[in-house]
């Protein structure tokens, strides 16, 4: 081999030998959190979107809006917000998300959505919002005619969304989040 190539080969070999010692750089992944900034966003409720605002966003068709339903798949099949896609929280944090996408997360009441929001914030996503009051708030506004009615999938069990406001059932703790 010619001498400059030989030196490059030595450098590559040394870098590879050190890689052999380090083994897994993924374990050294650092996450830097701007805690003060996140606290300010939470305090000012910039991370929230109301049912009326989400309805307007859907109507106007703003670019790259993704509505994420965090409930279980059966609940999703029964009824969900128009255009919503369902993902569990573990799926959501593993999904490749574009930072140019605007994500609106919702769960039944909003707790799971808030928890998912925090996990995405840790990953560096900033264009993420949660639906204020969760699906319950959307249904309330839908009844009043401010938001579009919920949809169900053609292959759903045929269960219609509740026509009237419903109260959370204490035994279904996971779904009420």
């Amino acid at each position, binding site marked *: 081999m010619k001498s400059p190539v030989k030196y490059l080969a030595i450098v*590559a070999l040394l870098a590879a030998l050190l*890689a*052999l010692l380090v*083994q*897994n*750089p993924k374990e050294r992944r650092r996450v830097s959190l701007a805690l003060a900034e996140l606290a300010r966003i939470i305090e000012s409720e910039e991370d929230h979107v109301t049912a009326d605002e989400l309805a307007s966003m859907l109507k106007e068709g703003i670019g790259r809006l993704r509505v994420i339903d965090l409930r279980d798949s059966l609940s999703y099949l029964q009824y969900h917000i128009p255009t919503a896609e369902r993902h569990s929280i573990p799926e959501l944090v593993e999904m490749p998300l574009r*930072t*140019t996408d605007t994500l609106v997360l919702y769960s039944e009441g909003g707790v799971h959505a808030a928890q998912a929001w925090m996990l995405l914030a840790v990953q*560096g996503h900033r264009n993420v919002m949660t639906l204020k009051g969760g699906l319950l708030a959307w249904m309330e506004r839908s009844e009043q005619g401010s938001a579009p009615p919920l949809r169900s999938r053609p292959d759903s069990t045929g269960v219609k969304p509740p026509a009237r406001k419903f109260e959370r059932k204490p035994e279904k703790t996971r779904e009420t989040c």
Partner: protein
Amino acid sequence: MAPFYQFGFFGEETGLSFAFVIGIGFGYFLERAGFGSSTKLAAQFYGRDLTVFKVMFTAIITAMLGLFWLAWMGILDLSRISVLPTYFVPQLVGGLIFGIGFVMGGYCPGTCAVASVTGKMDGWVHLVGMMVGILTFGELYPVLDIFYNSSAMGELSLDTLLGIPYGTAVFLLVVLALAGFYLAETIERRLAPMKPGS
């Protein structure tokens, strides 16, 4: 923190502008490396000139070591790097078709674009053929759909496939590449055409 696009340092339009500039740079260096010549490219299949093999393997190990050490330094988040999923049989067939086209035409998709802009007619013929191939594939996609999506194996990487640590996979690939370079140069020396008077 990289990838810059994924972390919102710039939008899609700016990202595409960067891609354009990088593409021009890539084409320029391909041309300067002599990859605008079908004779040089086809010579690798006869063992006379293995520059393509050496350049490609150099690019692979440079990118691999770069990704590894940038991730180690915390500059790059490897989980945000997109990995193309493997469809074993369709990609094997696609690779064979690609190889046959490469031997027959003397160009791959990138190098035929390089040859075209430097005014080589065979490059243009190859480029037009490639476009016709893409169009034909697109039209036949409904028929090929099942085969195209068959034997899906997900996003594979060498370390997970072999069940070895990431660093070991990096080391083995670099050793393999260096051994390959040495072997390539030995083959070139043996099969290179004799110079007049030598």
